[in-house]
């Protein structure tokens, strides 16, 4: 063995333990790294897509989603269910011929990989960092189109997700 191997003797042991305890004591004066969530919510970085999806609307109120199912195609976890239908020209839901009659995302399956928003050709689907998703049943975990069209509230404000 060419390299120097550490040895244990009384003096080095006492010294090492002392220096270790000093190092530990030093940490007492460092800033805490944990966060008092939910009293203080540190906003996630802009790109963060650790939260739920959102379906967007055009400025005129029409849905951007055209029910093309590209998101469902792209989803590696089969978490998205889209059913297209034909727009009523009198009362269109989205511009063009087609709209999403049904749109569901199953958050028990979703892995937040973001391929769906990368696939969306109309930016109808975006991922947010609204991560306060808690469910108590399977049904609740499947978000419907109406829920997804609702923009997420600021973090920490949804009473459903608040503790206590």
């Amino acid at each position, binding site marked *: 063995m060419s390299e120097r191997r550490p040895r244990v003797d009384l003096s080095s042991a006492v010294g090492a333990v002392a220096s270790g305890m000093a190092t530990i004591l030093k940490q007492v004066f460092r800033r805490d790294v944990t966060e008092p969530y939910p009293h203080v919510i540190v906003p996630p970085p802009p*790109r963060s897509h650790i939260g739920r999806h959102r379906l967007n609307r055009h400025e005129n109120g029409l849905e951007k989603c055209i029910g093309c199912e590209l998101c469902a195609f792209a989803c590696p976890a089969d978490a998205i269910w889209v059913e297209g239908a034909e727009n009523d020209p009198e009362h269109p839901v989205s511009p063009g011929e087609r709209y999403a009659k049904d749109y569901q995302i199953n958050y028990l399956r979703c892995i937040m990989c973001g391929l769906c928003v990368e696939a969306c050709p109309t930016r109808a689907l975006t991922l947010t960092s609204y991560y306060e998703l808690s469910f108590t049943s399977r049904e609740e975990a499947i978000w419907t189109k109406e829920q997804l069209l609702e923009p997420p509230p600021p973090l920490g404000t949804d009473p459903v997700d608040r503790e206590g």
Partner: protein
Amino acid sequence: MSGRATELRQETMIVNMGPQHPSTHGVLRLLLELDGETVVSCRPIVGYLHTGIEKNTEYRTWQQGVTFVTRADYLSPFFNELAYALAVERLLGIEAPPRAQVLRVLFCELNRIASHLVWLATSGMELGAVSVMLYGFREREAILDIFEMATGLRMNHAYVRIGGVVMDLPPGGEERIRDFCDMLPGRIREYERLLSRNPIWLERNVGVGVLPAEEAIALGVTGPTLRAAGVAKDVRRDEPYCGYETYDFEVVTREAADCYARYEIRIEEMRQSLRIVEQCLERLREPGPVMVEDPKVAWPARLEVGPDGIGNSPAYVRHIMEESMEALIHHFKMVTEGVRVPAGEVYQPVESPRGELGMYVVSDGEHRPYRVRIRDPSFVNLQALPTMVEGGLVADVIAVIASVDPVMGGVDR
């Protein structure tokens, strides 16, 4: 004679350590035969975390494969993604643009540090040094913050894609990485002060779990465990990818082949990774694309953050929905079917924090992999466990597992 010895021998006790046990890194199961507290035999049993990742990729497009493999060894997602992407790129005969390569190296090395920090944390905890665990995770958190800032996710990023990476660093990203590089060396010194000379740490690690070079090689062990036996094997240097041959770093080795040597190597590797990260930051001054330009290969997304979250940029949406029929078709087909990879097979290794991580990828010319097989270092390294622990004490088993640093997600796939 032997009959008499058998008579004299006391009854042994069989202990199932795991699959649910605090220090088996998830769901490793060890069938231990104990004579008192001495380990007579050890049989590792795996498969409790089988996720079907390899099989799943056969039913998904080539591009979707990234989101699966990244979850195999969940502590080194970038390495999984990179090995997969490099393998597919080799089959396609393409190469990612230089900036993408630098970003890949950058994130891999940060990931290596993060992974080693988890190793440090878990080994610390398993040997009872609870504070070290929190320090390890604390510093890793800083890296995960960097990852989240750049990729939007803290783990399982699906950031490395076939043909490049999905997004460039955000503005200010390099600064944050630089800050981290300034912070970490001091922290590494603290770990060393806590552990390197600590008598209990020494007596738990020195001379424990010795795996000599010949046995390590015979068992296919790679990574720090092999380098701790004095074998300077590192894929980054031996079979360079992503331009590793142009980076300045050392392959750290030790001779003692015990747990302590592995500890020293990983600590030193963090420093080496920092060196590489700093070199990457230098190279990132050069702007450039991060994805190949060929629309028949490139993943089509152009992401942009807006008030509604992250999604395709309005300019890109306009381009594919109003301007270019060809771009729309390529977007559609890339998303739905993905790239069609020429038939062939390729084995692509990368040096993950745990050793040689290889992707053996077979294409039959379709838009889905015919087979993706992950040579995960944790899986192979676990083979050496009995060699290292038999004859030792139960407590040494813990030290040895910790020093091998297996990740069951990678073992079971």
